[in-house]
């Protein structure tokens, strides 16, 4: 009986073990902030490597990291650092510590309508606005009009960044309307003269970007200020992997970090890490 049992056991093992990933295809999923950037990288990379296929989709940082846990993506794009719980799940599932690679920098930008008189706010003022404690533009030097808040969905890394960095972990005012992507936030603020929203710097076209005041000075989310750290709301944009980069995945990440890849970062409107 022992032999029979052991044979069954080995047969089961042999039946289920040899499965390998589809070679030549790298899937990239996650942060909406990073989708355009990753698509540009993918296009340039595939031109150089015609046999390779890079598939890029958005969905939000949380979605990308969940896909990484489920084995449905090779790279998770995330505009925030991985959470401890996510890291633990990855370790439990794949028995390896996940790797995070900072591939670009972003200045989280607050947008207001072009007609808004307000040009700059402190982080504290932004906090009060998004907590709902400041409800009128008049309180921060603008018109006597109610502030209309726009926010991202909680699966977004930008949402988490603003919640942690600006709101100090507190929750957004319940009046804040959640929108599915940064482009939707920009569009809403462009239409609503009393609106305020936030997102990646790359999307801030056609509306006014707020400067952030630090002491007497106000800093725009420019490349120089983000790189120098003067702009207080800058963050890294990450690629997360289940393990160390290898093979096709490594080749793609190496390209993103190369001079050519980092030039694309600048073209798209973000800031290089190298």
């Amino acid at each position, binding site marked *: 009986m022992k032999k029979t049992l052991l044979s069954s056991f080995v047969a089961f093992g042999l039946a289920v*073990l040899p499965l390998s990933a589809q070679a030549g295809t790298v899937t990239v999923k996650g942060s909406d902030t990073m989708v355009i950037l990753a698509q540009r990288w993918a296009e340039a990379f595939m031109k150089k490597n015609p046999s390779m296929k890079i598939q890029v989709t958005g969905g939000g940082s949380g979605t990308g990291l969940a896909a990484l846990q489920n*084995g449905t993506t090779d790279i998770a794009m995330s505009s925030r650092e991985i959470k401890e719980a996510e890291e633990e799940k990855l370790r439990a599932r794949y028995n390896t510590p996940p790797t995070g690679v900072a591939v670009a920098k972003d200045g989280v930008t607050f947008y207001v309508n072009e007609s808004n008189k307000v040009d700059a706010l402190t982080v504290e003022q932004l906090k009060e606005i998004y907590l709902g404690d400041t409800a009128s533009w008049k309180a921060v030097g603008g018109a006597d009009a109610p502030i209309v808040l726009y926010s991202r969905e909680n699966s977004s890394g930008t949402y988490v960044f603003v919640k942690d960095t600006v709101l100090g972990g507190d929750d957004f005012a319940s009046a804040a309307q959640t929108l599915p992507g940064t482009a939707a936030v920009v569009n809403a603020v462009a239409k609503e003269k009393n609106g305020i929203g936030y997102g990646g710097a790359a999307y801030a076209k056609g509306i006014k970007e707020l400067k952030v005041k630090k002491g007497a000075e106000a800093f725009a989310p420019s490349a120089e200020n983000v790189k120098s750290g003067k702009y207080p709301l800058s963050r890294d944009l990450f690629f997360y992997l289940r*393990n160390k980069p290898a093979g096709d995945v490594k080749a793609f990440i190496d390209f993103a970090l190369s001079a050519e890849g980092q030039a694309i970062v600048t073209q798209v409107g973000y800031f290089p890490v190298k």
Partner: protein
Amino acid sequence: MRTLLVALSLLSSSAAMAQAATPQEALPSPRAAAPGEAVEPSTTDVAQPSAPLPPRANAPTVPEASPSIDERLTADEHRVEALEEQNTETKNDLSALKKLRFSGYIQARYQYQEPLDDTGAGGFSRFGVRRGRLKATYTTDVAQFMLQIDAVPAGVTLKDAEATLFVPGTRQQLSLTMGQMKWPFGYEGPQSSSDREFPERSRVVRNLLPSERDRGAKVNGRYKFLRLAVGLFDGNGTDSGTTQDNDKEKDVVGHLGFDLKWIAGGISGWYGHTLGRLPTDTFRHAYQRSRVGADLQAYFDVVPLGGTSLKGEFIAGRTYGAANNATHLDVPAHGWYLLLVQNIGLNDAVGVRYDSFDPHNGQRDLAAGEAPGADNTINTVGVVVQHHFGENLKMSATYEIPTTHVVAQALDPHDNLFTLQMQARF
């Protein structure tokens, strides 16, 4: 759409002309017939603006008016705005629902154990449902509610019922939990059974942390790479056969851990008492119930096949409740395990575990005839192969070979165990 707008235009033009001619009189108009429907004589059915009016004889010809681009855009914008409002409303509803999360898993098994001795006694071949968990978690910024039940053929039992307060301003890094929850002790005890490679926890954990849960209150805190969880518990666990504490004292249980990504671990402590009576006691006596433990987990990425993890834990304690509510009062015991898991690609893994448990430190091995003593050390070697079918289904085959210390004429029981398990999780 264009046809509809033209029809509306015609309708409004005709109505306007009719009104101009006879302002006090409502014009009777026939109702438009549906395809296949007989046309009925009209009555005073004038309140149907969507029904196109047939051209009347001698009526002036109305030129076809098509809406301008601006009109069409405005109409479309209104439509989009209406959809946006509906979308916002739906999202508001969904955002509340998003805070409530249901999860769960089922572990269904086939197990085969050899007859324990050469007479053919003992052993089994059986199907079973080991765990059928359903968990509801509702999380807000300041609070979390968690309820988990276990529905198996033997009945439905409560596993967890926790109420947690996230201390404001700590970004959920500091929390207070009350209710029925897992003891914050060691690694394998608090680990979810759905994440574990082997069907059951190692023998030392099963004996020194039976049921892994208890009623109490605990504080969880994190600071950089350090983690602390410490709490006050009844101490008897949920499998002790009683739902009430049997003494007024509380057991203090805690774990101080670190997490440096590729290596994590910690030390655990437990101190408390429980009332009980040994055969030599006249009255019940408060016996010390204590444990100390250390655990370490390391994750490597050196083999090209996939990740490798090495996990180990040591626990020593006095007074413990083993299976079948048997309480070993004032008995010192210890055990440890070492587990090596190798991932093969994304969906497969193999693991080997060696675990050792001495139910009574310092007691020499005993035997009763051909059977070894109940307190003899048992060492178990186990091998597991597992495969993930997508994200929801895991299948594993495990073979475990326990070896009981024997003396004199005693024989190691033939208690090797094969377990084939399917785990579905959502």
